[in-house]
């Protein structure tokens, strides 16, 4: 069932492959690497599908280099859907790039908030303060959300900080923890098990289950981390709890 788009033109997107996932979803691959250009294409194409407003399309999930489209198989058969997907015109990825929102995320690095900061520092041959400086030196792209509600996969982490996951995941990672794994960094929105190296913690909630805008980030947004002191962490935490209880 793999369909190769052999002759892409200006009007059709550069689809590498269409892969049916069972009888109710299709994955469209755009490449096989983690690359901002490919991810921009993914997000612009996902937005294009959303714009079509087709009935019977239940979820559109952009990821690093592919989109998974969940559909109602009572309304769509797989051929009709893949044919329609190929008619969606291409959007200039550069146009899309400017649409992401920039978020400044304050982070209390090290100590109890970032129990692995020292390990990351010795692994990379840096002082903890240099790790913080390097981690905050990059404006990260939200490549995708997944794992838990609101968890952003941010990249690319400076090569020097790329450290493998913990050999055994922690059973409980506190919400707001900022971690890194290989060339990725991310933020745990809710308490879950987790194997990423934890270097800090943000008081900003990424998922508010009862909020009118439950998710802080969307694919294609940009994240800039800012180091803060314990005092500011406490102050912002109190402010966030207050906001959560506002009607």
């Amino acid at each position, binding site marked *: *069932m*793999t369909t190769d788009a052999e002759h892409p033109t200006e009007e059709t997107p550069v689809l590498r*492959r269409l*892969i*049916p*996932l*069972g*009888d*109710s*979803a299709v*994955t469209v691959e755009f490449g*096989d*690497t*983690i690359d901002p250009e490919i991810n921009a294409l993914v997000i612009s194409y*996902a937005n294009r599908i959303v714009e079509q407003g087709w009935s019977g399309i*239940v*979820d*559109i*999930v*952009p*990821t*690093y*280099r*592919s*989109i*998974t489209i*969940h559909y109602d*198989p*009572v309304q769509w*058969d*797989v051929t009709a859907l893949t044919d329609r997907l190929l008619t969606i015109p291409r959007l200039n990825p550069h146009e899309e790039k400017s649409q992401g929102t920039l978020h400044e995320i304050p982070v209390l690095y090290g100590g109890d908030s970032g129990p692995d900061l020292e390990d990351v520092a010795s692994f990379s041959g840096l002082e903890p303060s240099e790790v913080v400086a390097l981690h905050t030196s990059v404006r990260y792209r939200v490549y*995708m*959300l*997944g*794992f*838990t*509600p*609101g*968890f952003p*996969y941010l990249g690319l982490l400076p090569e020097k900080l790329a450290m493998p996951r913990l050999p055994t995941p922690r059973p409980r990672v506190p919400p707001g923890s900022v971690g890194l794994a290989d060339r990725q960094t991310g933020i745990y929105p*809710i308490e*879950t098990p987790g194997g990423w190296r934890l270097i800090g913690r943000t008081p900003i909630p990424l*998922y508010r*289950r*009862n909020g009118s805008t*439950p*998710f802080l980030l*969307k*694919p294609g947004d940009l994240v800039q981390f800012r180091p803060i002191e314990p005092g500011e962490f406490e102050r912002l935490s109190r402010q966030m709890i207050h906001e959560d209880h506002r009607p």
Partner: protein
Amino acid sequence: MTRKRAEIDVAKPGWLTTIQDLGRYGYQRYGMPSAGAMDRFAAVVANRLVGNPDQAAVLECTLKGPELLFRDDALMAVTGADLSPTLNGSDIPLWTCLTVRRGGRLRFGTRRIGVRCYLAIGGGFDVPLVLGSRSTHCPSRTGGLDGRPLRAGDLLLGGPFGSDVERLVGRRLPDRLLPRYDRSIVARIILDSRREWFHSAAFTTLTNSVYMVAPQSDRMGYRLIGPPLPRTGAHRFISEGTVTGALQVPADGQPILLMADRQTTGGYPPIATVISVDVPLAAQLGPGDTVRFVSCSIVEAQALLRTRHHLLDAALPPVAINRPSL
């Protein structure tokens, strides 16, 4: 037209009882799992039997059912697994619309077949819609009753329902549409069209072996124990969207069957996906139960689903969400 609401006390919560509907859609791009009833067929039938729209919230009771005390008259249907339900001490039939009188006590006993039983009441269970759904997703404490399973002492509220519903009492799902739950099932699968992630032997192993559901299995997924499915391991699989029914294969080659609470994205390559009409059979497997997989085409899988859909509509017509008589 008078409208009634039922109140129900939770005397005992059971092993894992949650409020579910058909799932939360439109937010998977934010990492929000769809959740929803594991056995969608049983949930839909329970709703139709009591005159509810398919999307109404039901109780999903796992392994050991709850004990519920009805403060008001209500319509009720129990579907899915047979956990030996009794009303005021007498056995009650599954897949049938029944009335419960005020003071009625619903209890469950021995597990006869299946794992997950569904209870619908006329008007549905009334909890707030969260992101368009009443389904409980426990890991993120979203939806249902404060995002958690039932506890003793909870009070469940039914939604409003009309007074003309008594005509539904005694209605049942025709025998020919009853699911064939079993402790060892054959599930039809669609093999993944990508071949680069597995040795060709993996595909034949998958369709020529019996896999057992491991104890570490829950609403997110079932770990399956059986002959390993050898991966090529040439390069790293980049996380992509997942589907319910997918068989993901970690490096050790032991497949994981993804279920309703699956994460929206996954970093293990899928080798195949269980077809939609067979997911309810898988949803009724417990630890130690077994599954064999046989290959099926997408066209065939979609035709089977449409046929089931039409047969069910003919037997128990769907109820429009805004039906005036409700």
